[in-house]
């Protein structure tokens, strides 16, 4: 189940959100930003939804605050106030994926969370593939080093050696193509 964190100073909104989405997602809700940070630490949160207008700090400010430590979760800003400045801030500073206005439409919101989760996982996959590639690149480099040590100081290659070199070249080509 997708792990969703929802931050809002209005407790009734939290109740309504959990009631709406607890069957679909793993829902975490809180009114306190500090509590939100604790949840981020303890749970693998994929999607964060925050209200913009809160007394202690705004939604954008919250996103800015957690950006260094938790860059991966996808952020969505929720507000009832059609404040163009908040939207601009949200996009420029808060690396925000979507902007949602209150009152929310439940099915739209559900779709958005799913999309966000999907995006999260795609990003994760890219990251994993990147790591994999990195590993295979270093492996290829190691092989290349070995070939170099084999070829240096020798007049000619054996047939077996030549076959292995081709084999390696193919492997590298394949790797690079991927």
């Amino acid at each position, binding site marked *: 189940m997708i792990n969703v964190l929802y931050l809002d100073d*209005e407790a*009734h*909104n939290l*109740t*309504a959100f959990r*009631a709406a989405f607890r069957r679909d997602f793993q829902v975490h809700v809180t009114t306190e930003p500090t509590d939100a940070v604790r949840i981020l630490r303890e749970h693998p949160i994929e999607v964060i939804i925050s209200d913009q207008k809160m007394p202690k700090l705004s939604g954008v400010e919250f996103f800015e605050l957690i950006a260094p430590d938790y860059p991966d979760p996808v952020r969505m800003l929720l507000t009832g106030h*059609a404040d163009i400045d908040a939207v601009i801030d949200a996009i420029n500073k808060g690396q925000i994926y979507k902007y949602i206005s*209150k*009152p929310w439409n439940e099915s739209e919101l559900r779709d958005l969370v799913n999309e966000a989760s999907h995006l999260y996982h795609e990003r994760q996959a890219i990251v994993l593939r990147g790591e994999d590639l990195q590993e295979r690149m270093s492996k290829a480099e190691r092989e290349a080093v070995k070939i170099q040590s084999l070829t240096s100081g020798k007049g000619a290659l054996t047939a077996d050696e030549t076959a292995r070199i081709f084999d390696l070249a193919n492997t590298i080509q394949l790797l690079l193509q991927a």
Partner: protein
Amino acid sequence: MTIATGARQLRAWCALVFMAAASACAAQSLIGKRLEILQDSITAELMGLSEVVQRDAWTPSEEMVPSLGLSDDISWVRLKLDSRGENGLLIEIQNAGIDELTGYMMCDGKVVATYNRGVLQDGSHDGAFGAYPTFPIPLVECEELHAVFRLKSSKPLLLPMRIAGPREVLNDAHKRDILFAAYFGVILVMLLYNLFLFFSVGDRSYLEYSLFIFMIGGTQLVLNGYAPYFNVESWPWLNERITHVFGVFSGLTTIVFAQNFLRMSRYVPWLHKLLNGYFVIYLLALVLTILGQLIWAYNVINFCAAAIFFFIPGAIITMRKGYSPAKYFLLAFSIFIVAVVVFVMKDAGVIPYNAWTFFALPLGSAIEMVLLSLALASRINQLKKESAHAREEQLRISQINERMVREQNTKLEERVRDRTADLEEVNANMRTTLEELQSAQQQLVQSEKLASIGQLTAGIAHELNNPINFVSSSAQSLRRDFEDLNAIIDLIKAIDPSAINLNEQVSSVKDKLSQLDIEFTQKEIEELLNGIEDGTVRTSEIVKGLRIFSRMDGDNFIQAQLNELIESTLIVLRSNFKDAAVLQLNLGEEMPPVMCQPGRLNQVFMNIIINAIQAMDELGRDVEENILSIETERIDSDGEAWAQVRIKDVGPGMSEAVKSQIFDPFFTTKPVGEGTGLGLSIVMGILRDHNAEVEVESEEGLGTEFIIRFPL
């Protein structure tokens, strides 16, 4: 009696005086050159008669009328008589003003007769031949017959002396008496006549003239030895000073008369002032007289007498300025001055001492009186003429004026018509301009209203969004929760107690219950219902607040609760201050309702509160530090009741310069494009319509407080 007939009678009197004077005009033989004089201030005072006679300091007189001067000292005069030819005759001294005068008749060095003839001496008038002192030459046979006189006086000692038979002396005295009687008659008639005129006409100058001639006449009376006829000796104090007193008062009255007659204050102001100076000097003479310093007093009076010489240039200047009565005045005083000069020159021996010269002074004075009387008549005529002329002139001027006014009126009417047309045009233009201005102003006020409505709707939309959000969301969730519950109820309904597999059925229900986590669902339903309830309460509160806030009867004055208005304003503004400031609300209990336009008052409160919040928000502090305090309270002072609202922030405050302008239209501290600068000006307008008092207290760095008082 008219003035003209009075003048004619006076002229007749004058003729009589002239004839009398002419008949008295026999040449007299004065014996001044036969006299010997002893004036030794130290010795003469102390010596007796016998010692005096034996001294050899006697000096012969060289003048026809010896003048012994003005001094306190005793003087002696000796006359050698012809012991054969002059016995039985009289020695006459024609000076009636000598204070102490003792005559000793000495026959061969022995005193045979003594006569006291000084005005201050008792019995001086016994056996007198007329007003002048006389001394009979005794009928004795002697080798040498002398008359020795001891003299002392506070007036100048002039000694016109003669020796004549008693009949001649008496005759001359009679003639003199007649002449003086005529003179005094003239004076008396003039006095009474002018007094009469004063009482009938009321012109003050007649009274002044009367006083003037009374004093002049009195002076002549005294100088010529007629004071004893009025029994002045009975008052020795006055008797000693009478010449001086009359001298002072005749001087004063002469000056007063001359000043007013010549209208000096108008025609010759400098002379008027100068003569006022003489007043002071005369008063000094009077004081000296009262103190008994008679020699000094006489000197001062003599000095002052010169004042009349100023009358001549004064009269000439006045005459030149077209005041014709000055002619008579000039003539009168010229004659008088000539008479005075003649009198003085006679005494100095320059011209002969005869009846004419002797009478020069009273004669001149009489002519002066008469002429002045004529002058006075002329003056009255002149004044009458002047006032008649002035009336005629006024009439003429008023006629001219009337004609001019008529002509002017016609012209004016035309011009007024033209001007009216112009003005109407200008007026029409101004009305158009005014209408344009009014519509511009209305547009501005409208745009300010729209701006605040925009601000409001944004805030309210947000306020409403939250409850609507969770109420609608909760409703959907509730539906799903009820579907879960329904599923279980369906299971329970399907239970057949008579079936054998009852236990199985029950356990399947239990399975379902745990599968659906029904306890959690129950708790959730509770919470969702709470949320829905709370949401509906909040939305209805907002709607109610909005309704109160934007009452459509806003322009009617009704009784409304200030507290209610403020609360409704706060509801619609909640989103503005919720995240920006902490509210300290202290609404007074038992606030009486205020007659007001609630809609417009809400605009007032909203404006001030929004300003306060924005001011504090700009400082960028923590929300807890931004305290907005609102208080209402009933105030009773000086028998007047007020409902007071205080709205206070802890924002940056204002400088005096800003504070003085905040209610000015278009004044704003916000950047160009933000705010119309009309908010507080509209607030002021609304509060003025409510007769409210507004006080603004602000200090830079501390905050601002608006104190508004509504009359109850």
